[in-house]
């Protein structure tokens, strides 16, 4: 308690001086050593690739030692740190779909995959997905592992109770617009009062954004999040809330809701099927899949990239293209629910079989055509950051009963501020 001001200041100055010395020493440590071309390292996260396919890749490329690391935690942050020095950077790395846009401004940190043979393979893969990893000057920095084509998952038994169509083809046809879908939701909620149509309105909003060809920022780096296409998506997303068919689930109770029958439908990507079946194993056979109202949309899907410091980019791309060949993608679908990015895989038996969880329905008949028709939209590096206030404000409507008009204004003004901070015009 009797620490005098002078002594405190002395100590502070001393520590600051020591820190300065350390900082000066730290400057010279970024040495770039030459990398081994026979020992390649691969970083991915748990479930990011099929472990079986990766194990086979090690055997298949016998003249190369492929060292794989399952990186846990915040993958993007660890990759950012790793990329700063050649020694710590991997030779091949996964990049999550939501992060790929933020890496595009630093495309010089990655090998242009077109220069190591990707240009010949590109026609076999979905062009809209390749575009997500392509810079504006045409460099390809990532090769697509998987995609998340979206659909409507619905409870056939509850639809029957409410007198709604139950056959997937019929549901797809009759619930083809968002308004049709919401109308069915009102009937469903009336017939089965504990059942709601959507888990929250943020999920509806993200689906509608994915159905468009424009997002929050355009190719000229201008903020367009206050324009009609976003406004329409917002107005549509708020409808289930005003109609009282929104379950407003924004906490950790989704699992209980889905197994307890509180949710009559789920709109989500192909990989979402795994979430449903593991949260609600008791509802096996009661679910079906139909087209998403308003057209196909995508949610998620990752990439494999080669950092510019890679010891052997040609060989690294051979490994990537082997892991992501249509045949191996089909195995990845069975093994890790990774929906293939090469349409040739959709005809392989691993995907064409019926799914017992969906009463034996052949879900590829819904997801396959959807995957090929997903609209291509420009996603700016700051797109994810700028979109956050819209989702937060939609949650505010649900949680606090905030006036949707006020919420829209707040979302737009916050998004503009973030855009300004991120250097968007």
């Amino acid at each position: 308690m009797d620490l005098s001001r002078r002594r405190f200041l002395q100590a502070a100055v001393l520590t600051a001086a020591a820190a300065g010395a350390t900082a000066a020493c730290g400057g010279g440590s970024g040495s770039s050593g030459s990398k081994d071309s026979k020992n390649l390292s691969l970083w991915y996260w748990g479930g990011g690739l099929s472990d079986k396919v990766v194990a086979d890749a090690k055997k298949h490329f016998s003249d190369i030692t492929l060292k794989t690391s399952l990186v846990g935690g915040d993958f993007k942050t660890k990759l950012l740190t790793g990329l700063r020095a050649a020694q710590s950077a991997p030779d091949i790395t996964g990049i999550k779909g939501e992060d790929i846009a933020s890496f595009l401004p630093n495309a010089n940190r990655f090998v242009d995959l077109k220069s190591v043979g990707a240009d010949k393979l590109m026609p076999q893969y979905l062009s809209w997905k390749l575009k997500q990893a392509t810079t504006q000057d045409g460099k390809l920095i990532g090769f697509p592992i998987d995609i998340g084509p979206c659909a409507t998952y619905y409870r056939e038994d509850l639809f029957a109770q409410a007198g709604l169509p139950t056959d997937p083809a019929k549901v797809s046809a009759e619930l083809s617009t968002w308004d049709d879908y919401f109308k069915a939701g009102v009937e469903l909620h009336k017939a089965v009062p504990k059942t709601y149509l959507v888990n929250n309105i943020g999920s509806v909003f993200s689906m509608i954004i994915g159905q468009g060809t424009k997002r929050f920022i355009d190719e000229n780096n201008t903020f367009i999040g206050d324009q009609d296409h976003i406004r329409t998506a917002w107005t549509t997303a708020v409808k289930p809330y005003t109609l009282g068919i929104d379950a407003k689930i924004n906490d950790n109770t989704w699992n209980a809701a889905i197994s307890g029958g509180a949710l009559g439908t789920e709109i989500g990507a192909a990989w979402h099927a795994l979430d449903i079946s593991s949260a609600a194993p008791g509802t096996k056979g009661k679910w079906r899949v139909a087209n998403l109202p308003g057209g196909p949309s995508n949610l998620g899907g990752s990439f494999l990239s080669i950092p510019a410091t890679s010891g052997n980019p040609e060989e690294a791309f051979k490994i990537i293209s082997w892991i992501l060949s249509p045949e191996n993608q089909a195995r990845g679908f069975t093994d890790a629910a990774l929906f293939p990015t090469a349409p040739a895989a959709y005809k392989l038996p691993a995907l064409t079989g019926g799914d017992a969880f969906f009463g034996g329905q052949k879900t590829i008949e819904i997801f396959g055509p959807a995957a090929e028709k997903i609209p291509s939209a420009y996603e700016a590096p700051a797109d994810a950051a700028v979109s956050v206030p819209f989702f937060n404000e939609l949650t505010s409507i649900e949680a606090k009963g905030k006036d949707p008009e006020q919420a829209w204004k707040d979302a737009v003004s916050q998004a503009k501020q973030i855009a300004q901070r991120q250097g968007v015009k």
Partner: protein
Amino acid sequence: MSSSPVAGPAATGPSSGSGTAPAGRPAPDRPRGGPGRHGRRVRPVSAGARPGPRRVARHWPQYLAISPYYLIFTVFMLFPVIFTVYLAFQKWDGIGDMHFVGFQQFRFLWDDPIFWLSVRNTLVIWVLSTVPMLFLALVLAVLVNSTKRFTAFYRVALFIPSITSLVAIAIFFGAIFSNNFGLINAILRSMHLSAVPWLSNEWTIKLVIAALMTWQWTGYNAIIYLAGLQAIPSELYEAAKMDGAGPVRLFFSITIPLLRPIILFTVVVSTVTGLQSFTEPQVLFGSEASTNPNSGGPGQAALTTLLYFYHQAFDNNDFGYGAAIVWAFFLVILLIVLINWRLVQRKERRP
């Protein structure tokens, strides 16, 4: 008039230690290193004038022995802290080139309503947790201090929450307070009361986080208070009792004044840790919404400043802005600690 029985002992010294045995210890404000085993050998004048490298060289084993901590501290704590000062004036996405932007990040900060919302959230959560926490800790410490049996058990029981994994506690609290399927709402329903949407309402969200922090740190503070209580000489209590003071009077006129340095310590420590709440809201509301896992829950009611910093730096790759947030917040913490310090010290000088 009412303060006469205890005014004497309380005035003898600010710390209970020097009050009990003033003769047996060196005066606390004499410079360190003077008296002691080496005191005789060191020439007094030159020792004060130039500590010099020779002294460092002579004591190299000692310096070596304490060096690992300082080296690790410098590399992993001090250097990053200094580096963030530099970063706060840059625009940097973590991998590309840095651009010097002057005070622009701070200007953004000033105009950012979400930053101010996060500061408000943090302060509310801090008050809601620290006040009951320190009060309960004091009561618990007095209770445990008066027990004769199972004292070791009580101490261990008090300490266990503070060494329990925070993530595990947060998941557990999330399950207890869950809106539709939580234990508390199940109990409320069974008593025919209406359920409370704990994790959606902006106030109950803060209450849940404050309850979590209170639960975790009350015992830790109680142990510190207990140590302080045992340093208070029992003669003071006996003398006060002879003068006719009851237990409440003893508590407020002897225990509280003599514990003041300890209370100051716990207030400062809980201010610093309480304002840095991050894991609690991150785990409680992190699992939802793939678009923004660090939004701080419904209505952003649980968005603490450190969570907002994390979101800006590591989700949005805006490291310069993140650095500006933590430095602005550092000033807020410093201000609050200084206010606390002044408040508690001034009271001490009053008699």
